[in-house]
């Protein structure tokens, strides 16, 4: 069955080139911003068949890795696998641009293996631009967006108005079926070095203030966050010989399900080096705090990727790791991960030169801090469309996240949904039981965030099931059938391996031997001697010492073929190891799914509904605006009683009227607040323990 493409939109195929001023002023989807969220969003919408326009300040910055020269990691690698399962770009491009591939958490179980790579900035950017500029239905326009075009809302959806296009910097209008905002840190972005500060998105870029004002006027609640980037060092001025070297994996694992191997020969990969801070560093930072505006201010920064200054302040008298990471094959720049700082440049140089290996290092570019506005993501639905303005989607750092992978994951969901919205199809959302993307978006849209949100495996309830190895079988079929953004080739490949795994599991369950026989064949394993009934190969494969190769030697006819297919053999092993745990969790997953299916009306006015709820609960519900009963249960501080009462209310109303007729909010769609109240105490912080 072929995916439901938008046939009417097929002609003429606007093979993407730079759109001139004469470009058709009507698109299905307009994407603002060409970062990691914007590129995925634009490509996904175009794959779905929507005529898409990507508006960016500079075509040359499309696909720019603005901070660290790496992709993936623990939790983030999971997100990339899922983006890839939906035919996204970043995983494939990393397989063509990496210079140092390393699987993190190797010893901790395949469910938390973190695929990670140092990526050549230049190559990645080139590859991304090639991809974007050659995507059918996708047009790129270089310029700025000054304003949104708005019109009357559709009555069947919540929202006080509807976006109908954008006003470009040159004064021309572009009409659009839906608009995706992926402007990253550009909303009132402010770069800080020492006591200096100047408005900008990233160093050397302009910040967008016109759009920020429009969003504010529309009543979007905004918060402020900060982040930072380390100084860059000249590679040839560093003495690597005295530093610990970290080699890349000798068998690099590709990010994409479609890649057989990565592009680089294992032996050609670059290395990373490890050095440490010392008391001298600490002293310089302490002595010069008065010169450091960024650190002094109270804006929330990430706890897990902190600046050198905050590490020193929070954990005094300790030594901190600094990783020296290559920026590319022919780049002379080294990115010192862990050294993000905002001291005045000359002091940054002082800090650098007192570190082992960096005594003579030359600073190519100083580190700096960025403070920026983000939009409270609780104003979005699970499809990332805003509740306030219909057909307006948000993705990436603007929603309060950090990281390329988090941005890409939101981008692909926004792109898919912007496209579905145009063709009047139901939204495509991912449940917490289906993927890390689902957890990410549910956390953001239900709880909001008080610091730049980063993906962790501990946020995920069903971690043993949502693994990097099975992202394709979890998401590809849905993506293909429901969105049309997944290619047939990928869908078929996924179906094939999915079927092969199921068959493999069945074969393994059918092969049985008495325990004594197993013990003599595989002396390494200890089988409980009390067992007299035959043991299945399926159970034997759960032993850490056993793999498919070993079993294939025992059952060459039945298992030989399966073991030869290396990917299948590895996936079978992982599948079997987690089988017991995941089948035990089925019921729980079912519960979560059912709660997620109990939808709450979008515009429920919690202050006036006739349900037994305390004022405190009403306020919490109102500021979080949960979309389902499942989401209600994850809001910290909501009591079980409040959930019961709310559910009663909803059910009663549904029974009485056949649909929920309750007071809806009109006009005033979000609590009126001071823009800077958000991002501080009012936000619910999502913490580690919540996910357990």
């Amino acid at each position, binding site marked *: 069955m072929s995916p439901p493409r938008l046939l009417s939109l097929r002609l003429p195929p606007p093979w993407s080139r730079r759109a001139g001023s004469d470009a058709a002023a009507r698109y299905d989807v307009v994407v603002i911003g060409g970062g990691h969220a914007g590129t995925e969003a634009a490509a996904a919408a175009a794959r779905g068949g929507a005529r898409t326009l990507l508006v960016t300040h500079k075509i040359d910055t499309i696909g720019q890795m603005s901070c660290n020269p790496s992709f993936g*990691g*623990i*939790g983030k690698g999971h997100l990339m696998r899922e983006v890839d399962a939906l035919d996204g770009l970043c995983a494939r491009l990393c397989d063509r641009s990496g210079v140092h591939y390393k699987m*993190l*958490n190797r*010893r*901790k*179980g*395949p*469910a*938390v293996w*973190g695929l990670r790579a140092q990526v050549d900035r230049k190559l990645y950017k080139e590859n991304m631009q090639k991809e974007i500029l050659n995507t059918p239905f996708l047009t790129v326009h270089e310029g700025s967006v000054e304003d949104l075009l708005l019109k009357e809302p559709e009555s069947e959806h919540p929202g006080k108005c509807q976006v109908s296009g954008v006003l470009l910097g040159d004064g021309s209008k572009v009409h659009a079926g839906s608009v995706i905002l992926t402007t990253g840190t550009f909303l009132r972005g402010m770069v800080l070095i020492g006591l200096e500060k100047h408005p900008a998105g990233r160093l050397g870029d302009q910040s967008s203030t016109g759009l920020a004002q429009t969003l504010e006027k529309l009543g979007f609640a905004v918060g402020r966050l900060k982040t930072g980037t380390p100084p860059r060092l000249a590679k040839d001025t560093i003495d690597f010989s005295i530093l610990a070297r970290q080699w890349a994996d000798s068998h690099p694992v590709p990010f994409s399900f479609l890649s057989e191997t990565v592009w680089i020969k294992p032996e050609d990969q670059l290395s990373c080096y490890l050095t440490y801070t010392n008391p001298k560093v600490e002293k310089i930072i302490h002595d010069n705090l008065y010169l450091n505006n960024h650190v002094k201010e109270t804006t929330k920064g990430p706890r*897990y990727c902190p600046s050198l200054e905050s590490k020193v302040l929070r954990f005094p008298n*300790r030594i*901190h*790791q600094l990783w020296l990471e290559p920026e590319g094959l022919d780049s002379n720049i080294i990115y010192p*991960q*862990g050294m993000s700082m905002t001291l005045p440049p000359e002091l940054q140089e002082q800090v650098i030169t007192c570190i082992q290996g960096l005594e003579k290092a030359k600073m190519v570019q100083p580190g700096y801090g960025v403070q920026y506005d983000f939009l409270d993501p609780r104003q979005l639905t699970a499809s990332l469309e805003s509740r306030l303005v219909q057909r307006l989607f948000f993705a990436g750092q603007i929603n309060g996240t950090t990281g390329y992978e988090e941005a890409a994951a939101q981008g692909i969901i926004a792109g898919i949904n912007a496209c579905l919205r145009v063709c009047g199809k139901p939204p495509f959302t991912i449940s*917490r039981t289906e993927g890390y993307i689902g957890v990410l978006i549910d956390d953001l849209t239900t709880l909001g965030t008080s610091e730049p949100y980063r993906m*962790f*495996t*501990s946020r995920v*309830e069903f*971690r*043993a099931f949502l693994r990097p190895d099975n992202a394709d079988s979890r998401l590809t079929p849905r993506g293909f059938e429901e969105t049309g953004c997944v290619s047939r080739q990928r869908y078929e490949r996924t179906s094939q391996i999915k079927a092969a795994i199921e068959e493999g599991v069945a074969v393994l369950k059918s092969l049985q031997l008495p325990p004594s026989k197993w013990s003599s064949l595989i002396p390494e394993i200890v089988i409980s001697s009390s067992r007299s009934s035959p043991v299945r190969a399926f159970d034997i494969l759960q032993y*850490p010492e056993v793999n498919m190769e070993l079993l294939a030697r025992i059952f060459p006819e039945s298992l030989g073929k399966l073991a030869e297919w290396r990917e299948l053999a590895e996936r079978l092993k992982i599948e079997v*190891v*987690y089988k017991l*745990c995941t089948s035990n969790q089925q019921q729980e997953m079912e*519960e*979560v799914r*059912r*709660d997620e299916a*109990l939808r709450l009306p979008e515009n429920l006015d919690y202050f006036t509904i*006739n*349900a*037994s709820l*305390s004022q405190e609960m009403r306020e919490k519900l109102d500021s979080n605006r949960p979309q389902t*009963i*499942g989401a*209600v*249960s*994850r809001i*910290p501080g*909501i*009591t*079980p*009683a409040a*959930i*019961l*009462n709310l*559910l*009663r209310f909803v*059910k*009663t109303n549904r029974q009485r009227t056949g649909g929920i007729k309750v007071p809806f909010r009109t006009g005033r769609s979000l609590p009126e607040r001071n823009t800077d109240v958000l991002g501080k105490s009012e936000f619910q912080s999502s913490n*580690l*323990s*919540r*996910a*357990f």
Partner: protein
Amino acid sequence: MRAGSCGSLLRWLAKRSYGCAQQRDTVFAVSSGHGKCGVAVIRTSGPASATALRRLTGRDELPRPRAVALRRIRDPGSAEPLDRGLVVWFPGPHSFTGEDCAELHVHGGPAVVSGVLQALGRLPGLRPAEPGEFTKRAFQNGKLDLTEAEGLGDLIHAETEAQRRQALRQMEGELGQLYQRWSQELTQALAYIEAFIDFSEDDNVEEDVLTRVDTAVAQLDRELRGHLQDGRRGERLRGGVHVVIAGPPNAGKSSLLNLLCQRPAAIVSPVPGTTRDVVETTLNVGGYPVVLSDTAGLRDARDPVEQEGVSRARDSCGDPLVGSPSLTQTRHRLHLTSCLDALGRYHRGRAGDLVLAAEELRLARRHLGRITGQVGAEDILDIVFRDFCIGKKAVFKGTRSTTGLGWSLLGAPGEEPSLPQYRAAQSIGVTVGRPRVQPLGPSGKAEGPAREAQVHGMYMGMSGGGEGHLCSRVWTRLVNPVLG
């Protein structure tokens, strides 16, 4: 964690669709005992409490909150005086249930009480409370956790001093606090292991956090084990020691009963088949409750009355799973045992896949949470609240033990929980809402766990022989373990 917690609660609710619009209702019930008495207390809870109080007292102003006032109580329809009594007004949230509550202390004559109840029932928005509904509302409004609610139920039903002491401790939250502390320690351990999984490689989370997790888990393991190996004192005390005297006809079962309770509770005669019904007697032994049940002799009886008696005897012996008063305590044991099992699997799996090991800790924590109701489960709530039948009918008294606690007492003292006990508990635990009834097999004998229970304990006591000998044997095995 939270995700699971409320999910189950909701499911529980969704199942009982009749419950949908009820939270907003105002409920009322007699909260003191039934029957003629000096004073009866009638309580209401819910938003219409204020109106009810106004209508019944015929005055627009309410008494001062939480202060006693003397009022004439009238039927709001006919204005006919019903009684004169004390009324107390408890505006929410500072009330037992957290909702607006009112209390009417009227004279305890049946006509007065029923007159007031009928008057209340005619008011709009008021309806009689379901069994346990006041406490359920208190729980739902966060006034009590589950162990406290259980403690309250026990306190109400305490018949002996020792029972009262235990129940009061539990109601005041001591048990809940212990479980909460464990839960917090487990959370801490879990946080370490999660940090190790998510951060260790490029951040400064060192390998020794795992050692700390292991130490914490081992410590918890020891504490849980100690707690579980209390010889079931708490459960026995709570439920009372249930002993069924069974055996062949005319062996002296009723004589034994009379001897033990030192009064002619059962009729004795030299004629076999004298006892036709189950005779139950509660003894208070040094503050500890013992419930003795005398049964008809097990023989192939012809007389229909006697046949019924025999079949009741079989029921008594053979169905350890019927009825459920002391189930709630078995609930603690089950979850603690499951928690302990998960901790054990953590230890065994630690060397292997860390994710699976961490999963066991998550599971262990969920089990602890279920005891206090942090992680609700429909069946738990059902059971806990079904057992609150305050002021409506006395369900607790005279029912048979279903936990199998009585049985093991006839086994060797100090023995580990027996298989039937374990099974019985297990089968209750996995049954949602209602305990499973174990039918008697075609041979007339109980099968499965029930049979094992019989074989294990029931028939040991009465195989004929001298009364004195039996008496001392039963006494040692019965009472000593409780007192010890």
